[in-house]
């Protein structure tokens, strides 16, 4: 039962990450290779505030999200300067710079040794430190974000974000600033990824730089592209495929050591096949061009 709950928590974290990446990739058309940066910023700020300053999760959360917003402003500056492949490459550069900083800034992040002993959140004296309570807590966050998107996708703001994605010149001709809509989109994406980071840090109670690498960013992007970008169902189904794939492999009596690589082979193959034969992804609404 505990294992099932553990899988549920991981699934919730990846659903949040996929929805956050979908905000950039699917709604804004910004192909990012640095979603793990926001995930990492959320996790590290939470861990530092809880372990080094001794504050609670509920104080760490807004500070972490505010830091994510500041990081998002850097990204929106880049999005205002370059687009397409060169935006992706700029985000790739930021991802690697972020990893270098986190890895080497030992006095703050503890470098490769990571930060241990991150205490769990508490609600009205009830400590969220079991897989069951965490699954419930993560589930609440997922429901909040999904409900937000059910509402947000129908708003005029979201339509302008999508219009900026589809035809920037047309948005300019309406007297609107495309960079403003990109900025809003990147900030929303950063905040959701930051929430996933705070959840991960408090659930794992230990973080190190290896969780926030370029590989992780590629993985998050792949989840969105396989599930399909632009809607809500696509990213969620992508996260489901990624998390449940190893379980299916275990069902086929595959040992864990083989299953880890096999999962990535299947995932990589799916990515190539999707791009080649079903560019919108399984449940996607937007064709990345």
């Amino acid at each position, binding site marked *: 039962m505990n294992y099932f709950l553990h899988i549920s928590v991981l699934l919730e974290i990846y659903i949040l990450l996929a929805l956050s990446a979908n905000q950039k990739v699917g709604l804004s058309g910004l*192909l990012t290779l640095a979603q793990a940066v926001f995930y990492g910023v959320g996790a590290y700020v939470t861990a530092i505030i809880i372990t080094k300053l001794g504050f609670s999760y509920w104080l760490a959360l807004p500070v972490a999200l505010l830091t994510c917003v500041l990081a998002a402003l850097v990204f929106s500056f*880049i*999005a*205002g*300067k*370059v*687009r*397409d*492949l*060169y*935006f*992706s*490459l*700029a985000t*790739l*550069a*930021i991802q*690697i*710079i972020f*990893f*270098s*900083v986190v*890895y*080497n800034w030992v006095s703050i992040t503890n470098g490769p040794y990571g930060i241990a002993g991150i205490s769990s959140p508490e609600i009205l004296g009830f400590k969220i430190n079991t897989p069951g309570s965490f699954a419930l807590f993560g589930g609440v966050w997922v429901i909040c974000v999904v409900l937000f998107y059910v509402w947000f996708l129908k708003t005029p703001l979201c339509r302008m974000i999508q219009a900026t994605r589809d035809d*920037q010149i047309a948005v300019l001709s309406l007297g609107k600033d*495309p*960079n403003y809509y990109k900025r809003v989109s990147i900030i929303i994406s950063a905040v959701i990824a930051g929430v996933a980071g705070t959840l991960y840090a408090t659930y794992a109670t230990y973080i190190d730089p290896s969780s926030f690498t*370029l590989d992780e960013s*590629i993985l998050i*992007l*792949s989840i969105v*592209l396989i599930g399909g970008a632009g809607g809500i169902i696509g990213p969620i189904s992508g996260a489901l495929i990624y998390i449940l794939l190893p379980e299916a492999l275990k069902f086929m009596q595959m040992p864990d050591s*083989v299953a880890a*690589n*096999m999962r*990535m*082979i299947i*995932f*990589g*193959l*799916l*990515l*190539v096949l999707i*791009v*080649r034969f079903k*560019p919108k992804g399984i449940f996607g609404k937007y064709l*990345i*061009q």
Partner: protein
Amino acid sequence: MTGIVAQICLNSVVAGLTVSLVAIGFTYIFRVTRVFHLAHGAVYIAGAFSFWWALSQSLGWVGSAAMALSVATILGYIFEKTVYSPLRRNQTNQSISLIASMGLYVVIVNALALLFGNDNKTILDPVTGTIEIGSIILTRVQLIQTVVGITTIAAFFLYLKFTKSNLAMRAVSDNETISKAYGINTEKERTRVFIAGSILACIAAILRTIEVGVDPHAGMGITLTAAVIAILVSRLNALLVIAFTIVLTLLQNTVEWFLDAQWRDGITFLILLVAILFRTEGIISYNLRKDRA
């Protein structure tokens, strides 16, 4: 101190020569086909593992190198024919080929990890010995890397000089449609550049394997360095690629010496970021890019 500086310079030139083989391949593929070929790292690693495996099966140095080159060539050819070429026919953009390339990289690297394990593999009978020139030490492996590196680059230049391929590749790089109209077989040129790039990457992989061995994840770092060079140079000029690679390697080794090995990638990509944002047309080129926001 002078000795240390000279040693760092020598090490950088030798390592830079090896990395420049990957960078020339990456730059030519990127400029001619417009594919940001991250799976170049997978070709590199597949070549390195083939060489290591063949050597462990007692196929000898020449036999192992031949096998590695065959594997890399076939892989480069398959990538182009089964993935990139159909994507281009569907008129997809560079971002899509980048995603496909990431998928190919993930598949090959994990397949190799599954076959050979995630640990570093070193060759059983390594080349040992050093040559001392004053206060500078040159290992025999470095000597082999220098000789093979220079020979390969010279062969590549001869290929460009004495075949029509150089002009054809430049034409395709400038404008594929007009190149087709003038009778250039663009498909053939694309395939050629993928094969040439894969061979160069494989030679670099062999040269690195005899020095430090190989692990399945070693391809991404060197490919990303090659990608940085391709963006900075922004021209189809192998000499410039070599010069930039040696300067970048010198900078990386200096950073590694004075700060920490982990800062080298950070500094490399900081340069890339600054170049993308403030010198968007690359450091050498004077043509403004068309994809500014």
